[in-house]
């Protein structure tokens, strides 16, 4: 079917059950809260290679944070709570503890908890102290610009979803990137989701397996424009580039909402930017528990 001149494939995005956790990072200014969040999100694109998929959910106003300072919420997704725990500990220890003026609090409210400040507190070398307020324990770790305040644990959910996606095909590479950027910005307004790849956009979509031993994934040749004619291509003659947006969410509804927001933006902005077709990545429906049919998510 065509909407606003863009072909919408009759297909679905296939996504997987994951575990998700999150933190709220605050600092003296929005700039430094964001800096710590960006640093913590680094090397967090794909769970296969990075151990966790990490990204910024949204910026928080001072009245939304536990200490009344500007903040940023970062979400982390992994295969299991046990797999997330070392990722959270190392990323907070190396990227948030080290960032000037930062503090770090639980970003997900759930009964199941994983360690947040339980590891980094030992940086205090015995000078750390704790304060329990209500049900929450906060560690105060002396550092060179004052104290690093970090909550003991954060919540973790095991019904999160990773791998919601949209494939954007077009006849003009620069315009395609602009349209994809707009779609990522639209997803930014949806709570509880991240787009973990660089700027939220992937140019190297993958298929499962490879001709090489040991490679679990390799280039999605069917969507590579330079291989058209050499492989069983999915691309029409006018397609010069394909970009993908991958979405992780704390719930299936959040992922669906994010895909809706992306589709709406692409349909509005896309035609003037060379977007000709929208598709989605799946594995025939056999691997992932969650299927998001594009036509059901159209505005």
């Amino acid at each position, binding site marked *: 079917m065509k909407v606003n001149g863009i072909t919408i494939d009759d297909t679905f995005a296939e996504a997987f059950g994951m575990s998700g956790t999150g933190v709220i990072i605050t600092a003296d200014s929005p700039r430094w809260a964001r800096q710590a969040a960006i640093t913590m999100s680094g090397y967090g694109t794909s769970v296969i290679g990075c151990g966790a998929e990490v990204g910024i959910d949204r910026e928080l106003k001072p009245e939304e944070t536990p200490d009344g300072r500007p903040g940023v919420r970062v979400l982390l997704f992994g295969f299991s709570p046990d797999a997330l725990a070392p990722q959270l500990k190392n990323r907070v220890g190396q990227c948030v503890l080290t960032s000037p003026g930062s503090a770090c609090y639980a970003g997900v409210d759930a009964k199941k908890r994983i360690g947040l400040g339980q590891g980094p507190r030992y940086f205090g070398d015995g000078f750390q102290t704790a304060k329990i307020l209500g049900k929450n324990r906060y560690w105060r770790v002396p550092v060179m610009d004052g104290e690093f*305040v970090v909550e003991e644990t954060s919540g973790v959910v095991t019904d999160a979803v990773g791998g919601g996606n949209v494939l954007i095909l077009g006849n003009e590479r620069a315009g395609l990137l602009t349209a994809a950027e707009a779609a990522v910005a639209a997803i930014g307004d949806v709570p509880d989701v991240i787009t973990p790849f660089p700027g939220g956009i992937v140019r190297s979509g993958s298929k499962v397996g490879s001709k090489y031993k040991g490679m679990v994934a390799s280039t999605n040749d069917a969507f590579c424009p330079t291989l058209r004619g050499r492989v069983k291509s999915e691309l029409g003659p006018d397609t010069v580039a394909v970009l993908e947006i991958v979405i992780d969410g704390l719930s299936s509804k959040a992922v669906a909402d994010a895909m809706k927001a992306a589709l709406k933006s692409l349909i509005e902005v896309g035609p003037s930017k060379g977007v000709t077709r929208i598709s989605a990545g799946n594995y025939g429906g056999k691997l992932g528990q969650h299927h998001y049919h594009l036509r059901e998510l159209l505005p």
Partner: protein
Amino acid sequence: MSGLTFRLKAAPDERVDVSELTPRRLAAISQGEIERIVVGSSKRQLKVGDVFAIGGRPGDSVTFESGSARLDFIGARLEEGTVIVDGDAGDYAGREMSGGRLDIRGDAGAFLASGLKGGVVTVKGSAGNLVGAQRAGDKFGMAGGIVVIEGHAGDRVGDRMRRGTILVRGSCGAIAGTRMLGGTIWTDQGFGANPGLLMRRGTLIGPSVEKLLATFVDTGKHDLVILRVLSRYLVATLGPLAPRPIAGPVRKYAGDLSTIGKGELLIAA
């Protein structure tokens, strides 16, 4: 809010232990049984029916319509519901409470909230010595919950206190926070002499201190993030009863250095 009411028939001529008179315990028994509960402390074995006129129906609250400094253990071991005292309370009010709310609309005696584990205790007037303290035989003093005293507090507030928060609108007497192991004591009008004696951990917050122990060391002025977290937590929990957040840096004194010295006295600068 429904519940039983207890009105003193006359001013008690001996100390009266009303620890059994909490909403949960009274809900499980008949009025006749309530009247036969022994509350006296002498060989006369005074019973509830001898001391109080009972009104109302069992519910989620218990109200003492008249108070007395001889009514001890009001709200002791309260787990849920509300206990209201429309007057003064004796010693050990809120002793080992773990939840619910105790509202004292007059003054409280000694050992208010001793061994408190949870819930909220408010006192409209002043409280005696040893608020939130350890009682002989206890391992620790207060271990959780919040106490709000709108008047003054006596000496040794928070003795052996381990967790929780004590807010005093007025001033604290001498040696507040003795042997403290954790938690927070916050006074709006200042500490008496020598706060934090033998304190190991915990936080004392106030605008001034009458005399500082030699074993507390000045670490300078600091803008502490944890004070912001504490202030917001108290506003969320107590609403208008919460103290006004401290604006700007505080002067931090660390001590007691005659112990491990991980406690702190924060004076609003």
